């Protein structure tokens, strides 16, 4: 089973501090990592390969430095990596990004599955996975939390929806976007890291992919960001301390008054 996994590099934000004055993230010293939700896609792909054979190819669109994310995926167990990189790709919205990635996938030959993370934690749109499926005309299952059966020409999955899990059976090739319930991402092994260091990452540019300039990067994007605002971080709410019996009762009483005042009870 040959699998393609498009991933994204995002700023590592779990330890980021906020600037209390401006309400912005303090970005100094923030390193980039593989989008956390993409790790579940990578793990899912590797597990399928281990079970059914085949090859896992990881690809990412980004600057040259994004090669690090590709190598990390190889260290986890992916077989090959591709960096889709060109100055012309900068500023792409989800429409232009899904176009660029789908054109790359077309050049990679045959495959049975494309797996992506449900969304990236920076842009938080979740639009690129379904977009790629639309460009490629692949059957799509989003929010996949479990793969229950795989045959030579079909896959059965559970997807997390509003009131439970919807069970879908679909023909291959198909595209899945996955949520974290699906797997526990493994850590790269020493051997994997060695392999990653030694592997050549193929770089594909707009020319290599024979892309129409009018469909890529900022120029090819159909949406425009026209205004950025920095919302105030602090709500300046009332904070009370609860210690000792009186303190406890007073704090709970104050909360109760708050709830009454705001008509929440």
């Amino acid at each position, binding site marked *: 089973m040959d699998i393609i996994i498009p991933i994204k590099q995002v700023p590592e934000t779990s330890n980021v501090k906020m600037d209390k004055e401006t309400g912005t993230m303090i970005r100094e010293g923030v390193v980039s990592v593989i989008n956390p939700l993409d790790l579940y896609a990578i793990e899912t792909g590797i597990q399928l390969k281990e079970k059914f054979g085949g090859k896992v190819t990881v690809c990412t669109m980004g600057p040259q430095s994004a090669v690090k994310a590709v190598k990390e995926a190889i260290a986890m167990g992916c077989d090959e990596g591709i960096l889709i990189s060109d100055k012309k790709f900068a500023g792409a919205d989800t*429409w232009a990004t899904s176009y660029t990635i789908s054109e790359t996938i077309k050049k990679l030959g045959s495959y049975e599955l494309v797996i992506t993370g449900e969304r990236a934690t920076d842009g938080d749109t979740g639009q690129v996975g*379904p977009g790629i499926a639309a460009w490629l005309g692949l059957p799509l299952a989003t929010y996949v939390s479990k793969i229950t059966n795989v045959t030579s020409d079909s896959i059965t999955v559970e997807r997390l929806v509003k009131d439970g*899990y919807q069970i879908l059976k679909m023909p291959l090739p198909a595209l899945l976007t996955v949520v974290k319930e699906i797997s526990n991402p493994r850590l790269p092994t020493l051997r994997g890291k060695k392999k990653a260091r030694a592997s050549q990452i193929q770089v594909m540019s707009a020319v290599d992919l024979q892309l129409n300039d009018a469909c890529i990067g900022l120029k090819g994007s159909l*949406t425009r960001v026209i205004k950025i*605002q920095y919302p105030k971080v602090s709500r300046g709410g*009332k904070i009370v301390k609860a210690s000792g019996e009186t303190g406890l009762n007073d704090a709970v009483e104050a909360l109760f008054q708050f709830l009454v005042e705001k008509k929440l009870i």
Partner: protein
Amino acid sequence: MNHVWTIAEQNKGKLRAVSFELLSRGRKLADKIGTKLCAVLLGANVSDETLQELILRGAEEVYFVDDARLENFIVETYSNVLADLIRQYRPHTILAAATSSGRTLMPHVAIQVTTGLTADCTELDIEEGTNHLLQTRPAIGGNIMATIKTPNHSPQMATVRPKSSRPLTLDRTRQGEIVRLVLKEELVDLRVQVIGYRKEAEEFVNIEEAEVVVAGGKGLKKAENFVLLRELASRFNGVLGASRDAVDRGWLPYSHQVGLSGKTISPKLYICAGISGSIQHLAGIKTSEYIVAINQDPDANIFQLADFGIVGNLFEIIPLINAKLAAHKKKEGE
């Protein structure tokens, strides 16, 4: 025809509440442009009375594509149908809910009809002069609000965060037209089959659409302690949420996870205990109307975002709150 459309959602013939929230958003936009508001629904076995409610809640027209094969959401056929309707009727704007269906359907449609799409908007407006839809959404972990538009393509499309607006009240004097449409055979894509549904053993939570969410984190110390929060949640008819830490420890299933790698929510009241407030968590709750936080650490990030905070031991505080609410209810009942 330049109308404003909302994509209504149904389940087993019943409309989901988010359909009405979209209509209140759409109503404002349609009035500003001076055009009609239409609700579009795909499904099967939906009664006239149910469709009528879309009119009583703000729509002037309801397009209902009625076919047994549309009973369950299947993105391929749904996307074909919506793209076909768009080509036929040329709407100005389409709003869909930022739910698992809406966030799957709309990016698929955007490619089919070549237009822009903005995800998970919390504010919408119409630009003076151009009539472009101004779509505002939290970005970069909720630390900025970005306003986005699609300047050269139509329709203007956005998904809208559930619970980020209130439905209009039911107005029995409203009138409108229900247009029943037949599913065109060439739009049916049967490659993906729905085989069934599975619910979690315990009652399945839909934290995105809950009015009140009571969430716990690492500070709860173990799964059994969620019983405290479960009681608190039930006193508000709310649902249980959890931080990523709590879900990663297996204390609650992933469907409860609040934050950037879980669900982004906008309840009327968010109460959290033992959650310090990572950037990702705060981004997931930022648009809640009221936030109440209980945490031992006075410097916890969560207090920055709290409308009311208690610094102290949650194992002492929550039982007292539960007792207080119980006493209050009893008093009210007398």
